[in-house]
C-alpha cells in the first residue's frame, strides 16, 4: 500500500525556500500572501491493511522523515 508523507516547515520557522518562491512570483505579477515549501515522500509499505500501513508510515516519519523542531507532517493514503 502506498502512503504519502507531506512534510511542511513549521509556521514559526523562517522558510527560506518559500520566501524565494514568493519573491519570484511577485516579480512576475503573481504575488501570493505566502508560499511554504516542504517535501513529499511516497512510501510503498508491505501492508494491505490501511490502518497498519498508516501506522508503519507514521513510525517511519517519526524515525527520520521529519524533524519536529522545524517541521510538521501529515499522512495520506495514495492507494
Amino acid at each position, binding site marked *: 500500500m502506498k502512503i504519502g508523507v507531506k512534510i511542511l516547515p513549521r509556521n514559526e*520557522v*523562517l522558510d*527560506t*525556500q518559500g*520566501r*524565494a518562491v514568493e519573491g519570484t512570483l511577485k516579480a512576475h505579477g503573481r504575488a501570493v500572501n505566502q508560499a511554504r515549501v516542504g517535501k513529499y515522500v511516497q512510501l510503498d509499505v508491505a501492508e494491505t491493511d490501511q490502518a497498519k500501513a498508516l501506522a508503519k508510515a507514521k513510525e517511519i516519519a517519526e524515525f*527520520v522523515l521529519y524533524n519536529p*523542531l*522545524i517541521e510538521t507532517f501529515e499522512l495520506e493514503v495514495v492507494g
Partner: protein
Amino acid sequence: MKPVGITRFLGTNCDRDVWQAVEALGLAPKWLWFEDQFDPSDYSAVVVPGGFSHGDYLRCGALAAKAPVMKSVSEAAAKGAPVLGICNGFQILCEARLLPGVLVRNESRKFIDKWVTLAPAGKTPWLKPSGGPLRLPVAHGEGRFHSDAEALKKLNDQGQIWLKYKDNPNGSLEDIAGVTNEKGNVAGLMPHPERAIHDWMGGEDGRAILGTLLS
C-alpha cells in the same frame, strides 16, 4: 595513547583536514567508517568532521545520524568521552539528538565562506584560555541554529551555549555558533577549527578548541 576517532560518511570532505590537525597537535587519529561500529573504550575522543554527508538528502545530517557508527558515537557520548561535531558534524550530532536544536538554511539563502569572530560563552571544557575572541573560518549554507523558546531558555540556564558570533553571518538564534550537551562532553560548532591550526592558514585559533582533545 588512545587514538582520536574521526568519522567518515559518504560525502564527508573535511576528514583529512581534521586528521592533519589532530596529528599537528601530537595526537594519533584513526578513521571510523560509517557502516562500522566501534568500542568507545578504544578511543580518547571522537570528531565528526564536516562535509555533505549522504548528499544532505532529506535534511543535512539526518541520514548520517542513523548510520551504524553513530550508535557507537552515542555510547561514547553516554560514557562521557569528548565528542566534537564540526559543521556538518554539528548537524549530524543535532539530528542524532546528542546535541539540542537544529541547523537550517542561512537567512540570506547564500553559502557563506569567510572568517568570523567568535566570543566564548558559558562554561565549557572545550576551550583552552585563548586570551580573547577567536577567529575561525565558516563555510556553510545551512548554519542557522534554531531551537524552540523553551529549549533555548534551558540552553541559557544550563550554560550550554558555547560560542557566539560577534557579527552573526547566518541568522542564528542569539548569535549561536556552537553548543554543548548538558554534561558538556559533547560539543558542536559551525566554524572550522581544523582550518586554523597554523599561521599560514590565516590563524591558529583552532588550536584553542582542538587542543582540548589532548586532555
